[in-house]
């Protein structure tokens, strides 16, 4: 196991840095996707036909195309697009392209999950909020959305798992994430199984850890529900 040590001969430190890149990539992508998804779900639920039509087109495209293709597209094209609009563009690193691509693709899945949850929220809650004379934003933020997250949470947890695993693909754009580091280490040391199995189990540990957190959040969001499972 000397190859996994943290000194100059081992790859332990490199793998740790790679893992932190992977986690950062996944967390940033998911947070941005979450807020974009909230906006998209309001588009999907809008009474405006054009905005609903736009949502349908966007959802169909993003759900029908591999996320890594979107990342490649952004990596190659975004600086050109930004230059055309603003006249200048920051350097688009593989990390930025990865976060942007994953955030855009998965915002559509988040939007769909939240849309479904809003539709499944009891209509009486909307009526009750109106009967109390709450303003629209108060109705959404104090009454509806807290209940929506209870219903959307299982879907959101699934999306997080998929985002986490999709970060592996970003190594194809040249990002030095966990997979890329392991790939290099495997080639140099000629001991590929140790490194790939290490990475594989690292991904399993990441997703199991988030499962535990998700279960805690679920418990909190389900408080006060009659006959909640777990009793």
């Amino acid at each position, binding site marked *: 196991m000397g190859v996994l040590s943290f000194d100059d001969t081992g790859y332990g430190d490199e793998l740790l840095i790679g893992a932190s890149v992977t986690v950062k990539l996944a967390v940033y992508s998911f947070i941005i996707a979450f807020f974009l998804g909230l906006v998209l779900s309001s588009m999907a639920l809008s009474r405006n036909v054009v905005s609903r039509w736009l949502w349908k087109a966007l959802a169909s495209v993003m759900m029908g195309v591999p996320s890594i*293709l979107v990342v490649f597209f952004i990596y190659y094209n975004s600086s050109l697009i930004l230059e055309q609009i603003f006249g200048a563009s920051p350097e688009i690193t593989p990390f930025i392209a990865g976060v942007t691509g994953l955030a855009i693709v998965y915002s559509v899945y988040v939007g769909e999950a939240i849309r479904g949850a809003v539709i499944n929220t009891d209509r009486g809650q909307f009526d009750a909020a109106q009967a109390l004379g709450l303003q629209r934003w108060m109705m959404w933020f104090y009454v509806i959305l807290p209940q929506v997250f209870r219903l959307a949470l299982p879907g959101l947890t699934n999306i997080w798992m998929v985002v986490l695993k999709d970060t592996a693909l970003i190594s194809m754009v040249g990002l030095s994430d966990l997979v890329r580091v392991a790939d290099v280490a495997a080639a140099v040391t000629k001991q590929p199984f140790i490194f790939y199995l290490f990475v594989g189990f690292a991904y399993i540990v990441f997703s199991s850890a988030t499962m535990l957190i998700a279960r805690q959040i679920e418990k909190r969001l389900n408080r006060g529900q009659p006959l909640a499972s777990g009793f």
Partner: protein
Amino acid sequence: MTLDFVLAWEIFPALLNGAYVTLSVMIPCLVFGMIIAVPVALARLSTNVVIAGLAWFFSMFFRGVPALVLIYMIYNGFATIEFVRETALWSVFSEAYYCAVIGFTFNHAGFLVEILRGAFQSVPMGVREAAHSLALPRHLAFFRVTFPLAIRYGFSNYTNELVLFLKGTAAIGAITMLDLLAVANAAVSTTYDPFTPLVCAAFIYWAMVQIVLVGLGRIEIKLNKHLAPAS
């Protein structure tokens, strides 16, 4: 940054060739994945703790590890084992194609196990009891009653997994396979047009996903004919 229709026309045959490679990896995986997944799903439901535990580990491992890591492990890993290099196995593990098929078969099987398990579990207890009370032998009760119903319950999940799987195959470019995404990327670097090849590839992916969705949607409607509202 506009769509170059002349270029699109020129590279379209190459892209379709790439799509053919994508499908040629995917279709054997669907068959082998199902062959592996059915017994593992049954093992997962076994009352024997050891068998059920092993099956649980199988599905947890292959769902948790990103497909890219899996195919790297198979393609780069087995090549370092002397025993593999010196026997007939080498003709399998030296070919990127077979490595991609093996890797994605197990990845797909991992998800199929969970879909099948859910489908078997959603067959109502009463139906199985009815089969039992009719004195149907166990195997007949399974093949004539439980299994056909399970197919119906699991079908929409299977459609989802098929779409995710089709998009996931974009990873095989990393082990030198010239699939749809890899052909598009190659066209980007030879033509210096970062826009047209990727948009064309995205369109082909999207079209393939729509074919899966529409085709399997039709089958699902047929399977659930008895639930359709009377018209």
